[in-house]
């Protein structure tokens, strides 16, 4: 096995028994045009992409769904724009009917200025959707307790935020993300807040199983170029995690030994 590149076939991401070669999940919001979005998705190498069910008509010709279908990219419908558990459950049901998938990215938003998850509504919706047979991937705050409760409710993954949606502020509380990763029995997908490639690499170095991002790519000056950067950052971060980083030391440690050096006059 080629140990220098474990990120494609050797090391798949597995969510609810389904394997993905790519650990980058993409969102579709914010792209200036479908054409730009298509280029960016291809450059990202993603195999799973979220689509806001409230923003599209699945039957329409020439929609984003056709772009995904054309390239064999899996669709992950999301419940963006829902403020209550009831709306989210309804949206997930409509998505299942329209797209024939029981996978859903569950998003229940507390207010439209921070777009932070409403933890109480989120857990409630997760429980209801799991009971209805959905494969639920909840977008959650970076609270290790809530992440655990979502897992216990039967969610197939947990998706903590790095910072608010679209903010590009990166990972504000790496410690919490590490705590979530350490205690999770399901994949952890860092969702929201990624601004640039190093943020995505950091998420993977912290032990996340995948990264979900949209704005950082779709609103970049050159989306396809940024998408390629994110792809490589996720691969690099994953490889670094698997490779095992060195401990941080307070003082220098020479990479080559001082002992046995030739000295003058010997």
């Amino acid at each position, binding site marked *: 096995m080629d140990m220098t590149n474990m990120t494609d076939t050797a090391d798949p991401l597995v969510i609810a028994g389904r394997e993905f070669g790519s650990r980058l999940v993409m969102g579709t919001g914010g792209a200036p045009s479908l054409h730009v979005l298509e280029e960016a998705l291809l450059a990202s190498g993603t195999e799973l992409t979220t689509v806001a069910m409230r923003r599209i008509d699945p*039957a329409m010709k*020439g929609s984003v769904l056709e772009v995904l279908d054309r390239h064999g990219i899996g669709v992950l419908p999301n419940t963006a724009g829902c403020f209550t558990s009831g709306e989210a459950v309804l949206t997930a049901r409509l998505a299942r009917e329209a797209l024939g998938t029981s996978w859903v990215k569950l998003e229940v938003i507390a207010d439209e200025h921070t777009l932070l998850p409403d933890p109480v509504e989120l857990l409630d919706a997760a429980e209801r959707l799991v009971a209805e047979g959905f494969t639920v991937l909840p977008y959650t705050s970076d609270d290790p307790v809530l992440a655990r409760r979502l897992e216990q409710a039967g969610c197939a993954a947990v998706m903590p935020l790095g910072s608010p949606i679209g903010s590009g502020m990166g990972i504000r509380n790496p410690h919490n993300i590490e705590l979530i990763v350490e205690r999770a029995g399901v994949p952890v997908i860092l969702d929201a807040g990624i601004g640039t490639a190093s943020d995505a690499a950091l998420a993977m170095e912290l032990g996340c199983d995948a990264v979900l991002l949209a704005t950082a790519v779709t609103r970049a000056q050159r989306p396809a170029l940024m998408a390629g950067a994110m792809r490589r950052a996720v691969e690099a971060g994953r490889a670094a995690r698997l490779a095992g980083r060195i401990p941080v030391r307070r003082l220098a440690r020479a990479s080559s030994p001082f002992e046995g050096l030739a000295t003058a006059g010997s």
Partner: protein
Amino acid sequence: MIVVIGAGAIGLGIAWRASQRGLPVTLVDPEPGGGASHVAAGMLTPVGELQYGEEQQLRLGLDSRDRYPEFAAELAERTGIDIGYRKEGNLSVAYDTDDLAFLTDQHRFQESLGLRTELLTGRECRRLEPMLAPSVRGGILAPDDGSVDPRRVVRALLAACEDVPIVRRRVREIVVEGGAVRGVRLEDGDVLAAERVVVAAGSWSAELADLPVRPVKGQILRLHSPYPFLTRATRGLVRGFSMYLVPRPDGELVVGATQEELGFDSRVTAGGLWELLRDARTLFPGVTELEFKEVSASFRPGSPDNSPILGFAGPDGLLAATGHFRNGILLTPLTADAVADLLEGKEPPEAIRPFGAARFAPTGDSR
């Protein structure tokens, strides 16, 4: 004979220009001027709405925008109808710090392309538009942009096309034989013979020819102010949401617009209205005092890269003039001139060259 399918601003403009050159044109549309042209706000803002990666679209927009003064003057002379062309610039304003950061970046991009724009403080914005909320953080003035009243444009073009026959029926299909266009078959089975057919049917173009155009729904509302409320087309960024207001000399104030990928769903929704009014009120607290006149929804013809599809497409004799997305009114003068050139066998303006149907060829078959 030349058949132009679609009598919105684009189809009417083409028919007018072609008939001026003595070409035999017939327009076919069940409801002339009834589509997106009737709902459009009419902003002529290629600079104010510039996006990264759209430098070619910018050239197209600037070319067409700068044809408007003459276009308006010619129509006024021919028909006596003033199309409401105004060149008072476009103001973009930012509501919060994040919005201002976005506009500041946009201003840098505009300047890097040599465009004339001015970065303004909040107070400077309010000197230009005193009804703006005091909390506005800053903005950009694009002094060469402007606006026009699309309903007047359609009315004037209809009047200018008085010698052009208009068949008020729906086209069922374009008749093609031996790789060449023979005419159009109407909904009742009648065939209008033609050697050339121009598809200017907006969002419905994909039903007639192999053109990658989809409907992008927009909801828009119209208020009326008895006193001067706004001087120029103003775009607002409100917590990341983009909206605009366009004033007319008769007191009409157009507030737009949602952008929704919902197919041919023409319903006006509570949420659509609420978003528009919420952001309008945030930027202009005084709008709540204005009279509510109208709300409507229509479909922008969107292509995969948001740019128009112009020129020969597919079988011999078939021309496309569609996919103008949010810029149909802006691009009407240029599209009309360019398609008339093509119909006459002349070299069209350079700016349209990147916008042929061929650019979608690799993926066009798997739509």
